[in-house]
């Protein structure tokens, strides 16, 4: 446990909150029970606001790429446009097709959205700024994201529409084939940080600021992970399951109103989540390019001083979100740069290219870890 001794504990909101409530005369159990919903609601709100920002960015950047202006009238620079979109979806009629399977049709979007939101459990914004530092950390995200294809198959099947069924099958095939290289890329990182916990993975990268980020030690893994994350999110080079020109809208064809909004929310929350996890795994998470401990030392401040802790926590959140949205920006640019792949190209890329490369990457990482334990987390 050297890592915990080296790294300052930072801001611990839970301890402060529980202490304050106990000061008011509550029992420790009740105080913790009152604390429990707070981070969950905060993260849920943050995820939804993240989606609104994302939709606005998508519209504005797409417009800029195509030399249009984009949304302009709803609020300054059209920032209220995503809200208007959301409101429109809330008030739309909720249609279940006549011969569709009503139960599965309703359950499908829910099964797509819930695992994505659950995965936010392990996204850290600071040393103690996450819902729960579970030991299986990043593995939890991988296993939760494997539930999603069931929801897609369910909605594709129950729509009673051949385009929907084809879209659902494509989505499941795509998600299964890209999960394996994704997991192997994550495994190489886990090998280096000796832990599955996202907090430990970030702490292992915070020794020397930007120089110790994993992207320099895992460049191949970074590319594999990013490609697979885009494929899992069904972003444009890989958006075959909902390819408009071939399949109308894939598994979403028959959906409208709030059920469609759930798919929409799910895909954007997933994109933000993937970007956040790329920044956690490869770009140093909440770490500032120059370690905050060094800066505090140069300014002659103690790391444990309350003001420094506040500033550290704030920079941590800002850095994590900044890195994530930089990646989202790249994803949106990619959408307008790269043409869609065919289904056979997609499966070839996944099984015949990314999988062997990810295996070799894992082997090389293990060999380097044995050869240079200093640099590769011995």
């Amino acid at each position, binding site marked *: 446990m050297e890592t915990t001794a080296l790294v300052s504990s930072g801001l611990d909101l839970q301890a402060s909150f529980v202490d304050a409530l106990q000061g008011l005369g509550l029992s420790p159990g009740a105080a913790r029970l009152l604390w429990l919903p707070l981070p969950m609601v905060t993260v849920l709100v943050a995820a939804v606001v993240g989606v609104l920002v994302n939709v606005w960015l998508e519209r504005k950047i797409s417009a800029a790429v195509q030399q249009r202006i984009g949304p302009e009238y709803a609020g300054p620079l059209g920032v209220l446009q995503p809200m208007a979109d959301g409101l429109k979806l809330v008030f739309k009629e909720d249609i279940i097709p006549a011969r569709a399977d009503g139960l599965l049709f309703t359950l499908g979007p829910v099964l797509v959205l819930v695992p994505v939101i659950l995965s936010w459990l392990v996204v850290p914004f600071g040393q103690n700024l996450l819902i729960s530092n579970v030991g299986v950390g990043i593995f939890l995200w991988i296993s939760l994201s494997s539930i999603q294809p069931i929801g897609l198959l369910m909605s594709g099947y129950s729509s009673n529409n051949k385009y929907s069924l084809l879209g659902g099958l494509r989505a*499941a095939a795509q998600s299964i084939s890209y999960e394996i290289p994704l997991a192997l890329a994550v495994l190489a990182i886990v090998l280096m940080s000796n832990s599955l916990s996202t907090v430990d993975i970030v702490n292992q990268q915070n020794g020397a600021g930007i120089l110790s980020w994993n992207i320099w030690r895992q460049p191949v893994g970074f590319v594999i992970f990013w490609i697979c994350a885009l494929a899992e999110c069904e972003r444009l080079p890989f958006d075959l399951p909902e390819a408009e020109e071939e399949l109308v809208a894939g598994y979403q064809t028959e959906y409208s109103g709030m059920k469609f909004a759930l798919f929409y929310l799910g895909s954007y929350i997933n994109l933000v989540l993937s970007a956040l996890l790329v920044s956690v795994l490869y770009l140093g998470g909440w770490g500032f390019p120059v370690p905050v401990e060094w800066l505090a030392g140069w300014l002659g401040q103690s790391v444990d001083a309350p003001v420094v802790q506040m500033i550290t926590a704030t920079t941590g959140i800002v850095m994590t979100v900044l890195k994530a949205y930089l990646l989202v920006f790249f994803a949106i640019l990619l959408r307008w740069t790269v043409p869609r792949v065919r289904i056979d190209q997609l499966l070839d890329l996944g099984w015949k290219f990314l999988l062997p490369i990810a295996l070799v990457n894992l082997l090389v990482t293990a060999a380097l870890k044995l050869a240079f334990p200093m640099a590769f987390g011995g």
Partner: protein
Amino acid sequence: MTLASTIQQLCFLVLAAVVVVGALGVVLLPNIVYSAFLLGGVFLGVAGLYLLLNASFVAAAQILVYVGAVNVLILFAIMLVNKKETLAVIPGLLLRRLLSGGVCAGLFVLLLRVAFTTHWALPGPLPVGEEATIRIGEHLFSDYLLPFELASVLLLMAMIGAIVLARRDVYSSDVITGEPVDQGLIEKTRTPLLIDPSANAGGQPLLETTP
């Protein structure tokens, strides 16, 4: 009883109900698609039970392997072949159902007897919590190395078998019997669709078909 143990009890009851009712649904529902989706629900319920027992790694692995891989493959298979046709009526269906129900009930009684006669409260080692992942890894590479490697050999055999089945065009003869494999079934001969093959009986090729 404290708050935490009450909630744990409640979670156990809900999860157990999900597993039992879901498993009954898998067996009894006539629609195979519902059965497959319910199977996913049962797997998730079992993962929840593992989580209650502080085995978070096993729970995550259960979700990844059983829900994410096995159940999705089952659904895939069902959806690729699912033709909505009514099954032919089998004579003596009631008798068959009664017989299989009797066998299941007998098995259930046997399991119940085992469950009630076994002394369950064994003093096991202390729960390790989050350290369990490390402990599992140590066991897999020391005293459980042989089963671990045997499992990987089994998976390799399954994979090679799948490749042999899928790429039978590579072999011109059957692997076991040595007889020539009917290539026509696997790879269609490239007859031009618009030309009647019977008109070509004279032997003179009407059109250059070779590339």
